[in-house]
């Protein structure tokens, strides 16, 4: 789907001489990344508008994206599976933000934030076989993921003190990443034990 569209654009660029034909896969992957991010931003904006929390939803998406890119986590095996699970995860997170905002559940948001950060500290970075990390990279991304989680916690505490609704977006982004990391770790352990048998 999106990956095919990305490849089509790359083929057109190669035909016009803008990129070399050897780089079609590379640029196709680049367009896949761009188009997917844009698509999910539109999905988040639609869900956010529907629930009356457009800006909180967009802030959530950006905060989640930053943490996700450094910390990693579980990935779907197919593009269709990805689309469904990403849309479902985004929808549930936006509903979570809305519910917490309506009921002013700042304590619950702080608990989610701390639990999510603990998952980041324990399990990140979690790579996938499609994009394995070297030992140096692993150490580097672990440091960055932890710094990002610390920054989110500080921002969350600050938001809680001043009563800013951004607290709920931060809590939802860290919670979702924590769940993806936990699921990825369980998945990886299962795969290791199956390989060992």
């Amino acid at each position, binding site marked *: 789907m999106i*990956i095919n569209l990305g490849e089509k*654009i*790359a083929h*057109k*660029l190669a035909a*016009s001489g*803008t*990129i070399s034909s*050897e*780089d079609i*896969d*590379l*640029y*196709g*992957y*680049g*367009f*896949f*990344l*761009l188009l*997917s*991010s844009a698509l*999910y931003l539109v999905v988040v904006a639609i869900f956010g508008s529907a629930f009356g929390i457009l800006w909180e939803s967009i802030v959530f998406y950006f905060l*989640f*994206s930053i943490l*996700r*890119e*450094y*910390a*990693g*986590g*579980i*990935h*779907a095996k*197919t*593009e269709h*599976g*990805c*689309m469904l*699970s*990403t849309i479902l*995860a985004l929808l549930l997170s936006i509903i979570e933000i809305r519910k917490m905002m309506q009921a002013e559940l700042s304590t619950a948001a702080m608990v989610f934030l701390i639990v999510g950060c603990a998952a980041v500290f324990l399990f*990140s*970075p*979690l*790579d*996938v076989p*499609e*994009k394995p*990390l070297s030992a*140096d*990279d692993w150490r*580097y*991304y672990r440091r960055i*993921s932890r710094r990002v989680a610390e920054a989110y916690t500080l921002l969350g505490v600050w938001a809680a003190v001043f009563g800013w609704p951004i607290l709920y977006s931060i809590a939802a982004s860290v919670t979702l990443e924590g769940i*993806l990391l936990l699921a990825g770790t369980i998945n990886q352990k299962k795969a290791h034990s199956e390989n060992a048998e």
Partner: protein
Amino acid sequence: MKNTKEMVAALAKHAAEKALRRDANRTSCNLIYQPKIPNGLYRFKKEKR
């Protein structure tokens, strides 16, 4: 017309390179699907850390 097409192609290439540079220096993409990375991606990786 030709100039506009060339400009759009150059902009698209630039945008794709930005996405590739970003992805080469991250653990994974922000989506729940991570395709196999193309060989040339490491060209965009920063050397010093």
